């Protein structure tokens, strides 16, 4: 193993290479630019290809094309680029093409603030394209080291589910320097819990079986299997068809191959002191690190506070919200996105509160004050335009 003091972008690059990624296409955008730069430097050393695209739409389409040609491929961007991925993500979901997509969240809407963290694409990661009728898998690490692990995991899942798998990070995580350990051998990878899955080739003639089964290899072109894929509703063989029943079956596969195999990834979360907690703080990504500190301090002060940190954010892990307690969602949005899912998932009549910020992390004293008030059944402070209501 090798240790580095490096950025999340570095960790992601090394993770992707460990997972077998040999194709990256991207478009410069803060704060994901350094990842593209790192890929342009590292991939050729490993015999991989880095391509700079004319826009994000092309970048992601080139990755899907490379994946259809048999490469493990990845692209990365931030919010304003991620919306241009809508087109290729939809295509990759429908064609069931493996791909890893990283979104490093900044502050929106539109270009917003480029060099600060945000989590405003929480819902966009669930609904990244039009049309509905699909599930998505999204992992949200909170450190550089975990970025590496989750990128490796995303490649693993994308092959087994044969679909694009997304990683949602944020500016602090991808740009921040941290202590990073990179495994050098397969044994070391296993030791660190890294799983990999080789690319296989679907031999057909049933390229799009109507089943929720895992491990059906993806369509790979150029092997003369007669493999076909398109943007239309497919028949089992992959022909385009305008038929409601066929579409229903296709949608069943896209939805239930994920929903029925969540055990493959729903262990990605972290709980702390939740068993006897009166207040459970829910968070993911960079704010969860402040939450962690605040919860530890609160416990030291005798407050019965616990932390539930989500890593697998989509499909949303409803089952983690079975405890009757007060919940507080801490997230980097002013409009409140995570809190809506928490409100939906908690047991009936549970209190759910919202503490949002954006572009900056909440502070430990702020969090401690909020914990104290909620435990005393007092409303959260309202400082001018900072409202709890969402």
């Amino acid at each position: 193993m090798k240790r580095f003091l490096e950025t999340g972008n570095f960790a992601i690059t090394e993770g992707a290479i460990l997972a077998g990624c040999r194709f990256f296409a991207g478009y410069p955008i803060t704060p994901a630019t350094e990842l593209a730069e790192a890929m342009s430097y590292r991939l050729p050393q490993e015999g991989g290809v880095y391509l700079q695209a004319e826009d994000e739409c092309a970048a992601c389409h080139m990755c899907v094309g490379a994946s259809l040609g048999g490469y493990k491929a990845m692209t990365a961007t931030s919010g304003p680029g991620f919306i241009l991925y809508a087109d290729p993500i939809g295509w990759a979901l429908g064609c069931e093409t493996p791909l890893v997509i990283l979104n490093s969240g900044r502050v929106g809407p539109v270009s917003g603030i480029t060099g600060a963290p945000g989590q405003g694409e929480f819902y966009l990661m669930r609904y990244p394209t039009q049309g509905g009728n699909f599930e998505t898998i999204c992992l949200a690490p909170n450190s550089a080291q975990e970025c590496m692990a989750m990128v490796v995991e995303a490649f693993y899942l994308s092959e087994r589910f044969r679909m694009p798998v997304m990683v949602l990070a944020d500016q602090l995580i991808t740009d921040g320097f941290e202590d990073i350990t990179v495994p050098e051998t397969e044994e070391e990878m296993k030791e660190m819990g890294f799983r990999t899955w080789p690319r296989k080739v679907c031999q057909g003639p049933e390229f799009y079986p109507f089943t929720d089964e895992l491990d059906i290899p993806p369509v790979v072109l150029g092997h003369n299997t007669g493999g076909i894929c398109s943007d239309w509703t497919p028949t089992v063989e992959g022909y385009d068809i305008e038929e409601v029943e066929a579409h229903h079956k296709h949608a069943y596969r896209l939805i239930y191959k994920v929903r029925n195999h969540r055990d493959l990834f729903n262990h990605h979360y972290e709980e702390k002191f939740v068993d006897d907690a009166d207040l459970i703080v829910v968070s993911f990504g960079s704010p969860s690190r402040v939450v962690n500190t605040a919860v530890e301090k609160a416990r030291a002060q005798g407050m019965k506070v616990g932390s539930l940190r989500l890593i697998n954010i989509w499909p949303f892990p409803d089952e983690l919200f079975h405890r009757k307690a007060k919940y507080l969602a801490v997230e980097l949005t002013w409009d409140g996105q995570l809190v809506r899912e928490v409100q939906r998932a908690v047991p009936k009549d549970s209190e759910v509160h919202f503490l949002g910020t954006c572009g900056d992390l909440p502070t430990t004293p702020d969090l401690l004050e909020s914990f104290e008030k909620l435990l005393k059944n007092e409303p959260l402070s309202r400082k001018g335009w900072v409202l709890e209501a969402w």
Partner: protein
Amino acid sequence: MEYKSSRLTSTYLRARKIPSTACSGCGLGMNHKIVVQAIDELGLETKDIVWGTSIGCAGRQTFATWKGDGFAGTHGRAYAIARGLRIALPPEKKILLTVGDGDAFGIGLLHLIHAARCNADMTVIVNDNLGYQSTGGQYGWTTPQGAHTDSSPYGMFEHNLMSEGMDVLHILKGAGATFLARHVAMDGAVAVETVKKAILNRGFSLVHMPYPCPTNFAARELGSRNQVNIYRWIQRQAAPLGQEKEDTVWATGIWHDASNSRREFHEEIHATIDKIRRTGSL
């Protein structure tokens, strides 16, 4: 009625998709046949080609007709997809794209230009039915000036990529395409020879092939769905390069042939990477 398949169709095309679901009298089949004939005359087999298509009449009607591997991409993005695929596929596998005019010259023009820029080995056949016909018949970017369509009821008056001095083939030549040609669907054997050259170019080739749409375009512009009228209308306004007349819209033949003059994309990228890997620098 029994469909009698020819040797060409039974060798290269899938019975399920032939005959196609195109409108009666559609000229797309003529373009399709020109391309398959060229493939056959070059002695290529289904395993030698990955066939890509896109959205619209041309894309949908040709998707999955090829017996080998194939894809239908999102609207206008087949050229970006094909670039990624080009990197991944072995260089001897050919990529052939049959797309429409709206796809290539409208929504996909940026990606098309960049595919030409990097001279990615692919043959793009732009099947031009003079507008957006699968959505009912709106004008496109190569619709002849003055033509009446559903979205140009007074006649097409905007400058477009067929206007004097603004030909889309000039744009693509400037962008670095190494083979460019134009033929109308009725050019038959001459067009087959051109498509053969396009396929043999190890680099970016594009053949622009206007074809007749009796159902939507002709109904609006000529007031007739009689196929003969639209076929004649196109033929009358087409002439070989150098023999253009006053009313020529489509100058046909090979516009630009710089075949194999510049290193192809896949080769360029992989050779460069090999060198970086060996020596650590360019």
